[in-house]
């Protein structure tokens, strides 16, 4: 109690209001800076998405559904749709990549967590998988060119191989993380009734980890669908539909965007925006599905 002039029994009025001081001003301005950073990043991100939607929709809806179905005009100058072959190509290449990378990544992660543990082979694989996640996509593209395209020509499958190389470490890491979340007592309960290790993994552990594995794989797929660099070296530049996975050049949405972006013809640029819209929508849908699967079904940390 401060020495005041008040008689005992009467407390001085209590003032708990916020005081201005150098400290509070500093805190407030720091908060202001944080808010500013939100705005600064929001503007361009929103601008990009808005541009894609605004320009892309204009093109895609102009002649719906022709844009998604018609073939790419060979003469770049000519206006009009479409991106049909590119959509097919994206699906073919990404599908092939998924079919290769997901099983390999899944089984590899099963080995790392259920069998490998801290043994040297497992530690080396984990380390290398970490290195692999940092490989620039153009390096993988060149690698596939040298090892596949030179011998077998351009094809959607070659593109799939390159994408699979990019996806594999991601699926591996995500799956191993999910396997770690499956509690050991479930494994023990399975062993205790006489189930073998492989059966335990296949019927107890993997089903329990499945939602997380699915969502991790979906995210990897979404990234692969948007990759451009590896495809430059593997897929070629077709303009017509090519449903054949293994032979003949093909095309993809990302390739088309890249090629048309540098074109000086407005018609081509318009098609680029339309393709960008398609690709962004595809990515959004996949990412959203992944988030929903995680939120509703996955094991919690």
């Amino acid at each position: 109690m401060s020495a005041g002039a008040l008689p005992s029994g009467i407390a001085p009025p209590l003032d708990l209001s916020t005081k201005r001081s150098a400290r509070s001003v500093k805190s407030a301005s720091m908060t202001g800076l944080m808010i500013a950073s939100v705005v600064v990043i929001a503007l361009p991100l929103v601008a990009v998405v808005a541009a894609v939607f605004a320009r892309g929709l204009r093109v895609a809806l102009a002649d719906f559904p022709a844009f998604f179905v018609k073939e790419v005009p060979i003469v770049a100058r000519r206006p009009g749709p479409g991106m049909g072959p590119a959509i097919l190509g994206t699906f073919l290449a990404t599908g092939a990549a998924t079919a290769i990378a997901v099983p390999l990544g899944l089984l590899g992660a099963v080995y790392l967590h259920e069998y490998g543990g801290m043994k040297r082979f497992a530690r080396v694989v984990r380390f290398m998988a970490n290195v692999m996640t940092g490989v620039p996509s153009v390096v993988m593209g060149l690698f596939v060119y040298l090892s596949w395209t030179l011998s077998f020509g351009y094809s959607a499958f070659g593109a799939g191989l390159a994408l699979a190389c990019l996806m594999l470490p991601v699926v591996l890491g995500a799956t191993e993380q999910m396997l770690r979340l499956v509690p050991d007592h479930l494994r023990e309960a399975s062993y205790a009734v006489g189930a073998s290790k492989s059966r335990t993994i296949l019927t107890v552990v993997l089903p329990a980890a499945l939602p997380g594995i699915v969502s991790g794989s979906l995210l990897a797929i979404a990234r692969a669908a948007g990759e451009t660099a590896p495809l430059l070296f593997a897929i070629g530049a077709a303009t017509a539909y090519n449903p054949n996975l293994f032979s003949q050049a093909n095309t993809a949405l990302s390739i088309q965007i890249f090629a048309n972006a540098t074109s000086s013809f407005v018609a081509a640029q318009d098609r680029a925006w339309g393709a960008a819209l398609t690709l962004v929508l595809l990515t959004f849908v996949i990412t959203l599905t992944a988030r929903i699967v995680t939120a509703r079904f996955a094991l919690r940390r």
Partner: protein
Amino acid sequence: MIDLGAKRAYADRAFRWMTAGAAGVVLLILWLVAVTMTRRSLPVFRQMGLGFLTDRQWSPPDDIFGALPFIWGTTFTAALAIVIAVPISLGLALFMTQVAPPRLAKPLVSLIDLLAGVPSVVFGLWGVLVLSQHFNLGRSFLTAGVILAIMITPIITSLSREVIDTTPPGDKEGALAMGATRWEMIAATVLPHSKGGLVGAVMLGLGRAMGETIAAALVIGSALGQITFDPFASGNSMPAVIANEWGEAQELHKAALIALAVTLFAITIVVNLTATAIVQRSWRPGRGT
């Protein structure tokens, strides 16, 4: 007589070998990549020796390949991108975790994660058709740096957010209970705790920026031989060169481009490993996850 011998054990062992094989594929691919790329790039190293890395002149018609301008370009644009992206990402991450009310924070997190999924080629498209035209920036280091910054911000933000979230609430409450302002609490508890993880996140973003091919290829311009600190100059980066010149390259030129890829690979590996090491070191047991 009790028979405890193993029945169906073959299937069990086969499964184990299968999974080990799948894990080994990772090693196989990396080894193949390293071997193939190095072998194919040898011709240019025989021609230029280590001068490949230090020469400034890149002249395919004359069979002269000096990669230094592109190494510089990659480094410079990545550095610009980091300088722009890090304060913003950090501010954003702190905002999402410390300032924003929960109702705002959750959709914001989802939004950032969603935007992290936008393909780089779309950013490049926007950069070349909107940014450099409307803002009259032209193709330059700065334009590329800005685009890269926009692209790597979501990644750095997500990682930073995860690290910051692991700050023990007890520490934060302790600071507040002593009458610290919000910023003082952050500076005293959140930042020291997250230091290592944040540096790691930044370096991972750096690795991404350096390896980014397409967006850079579209907006960086194609001037050769520029080694300058002037952000408004045009230049080139390693991945952009590879993407732009591959189509018409002849034999030795191709080898040179492959050599560029190998160099890029090496640099990004070093950056990523350093990032991982820093993150591992700071993620001590008992702290964080």
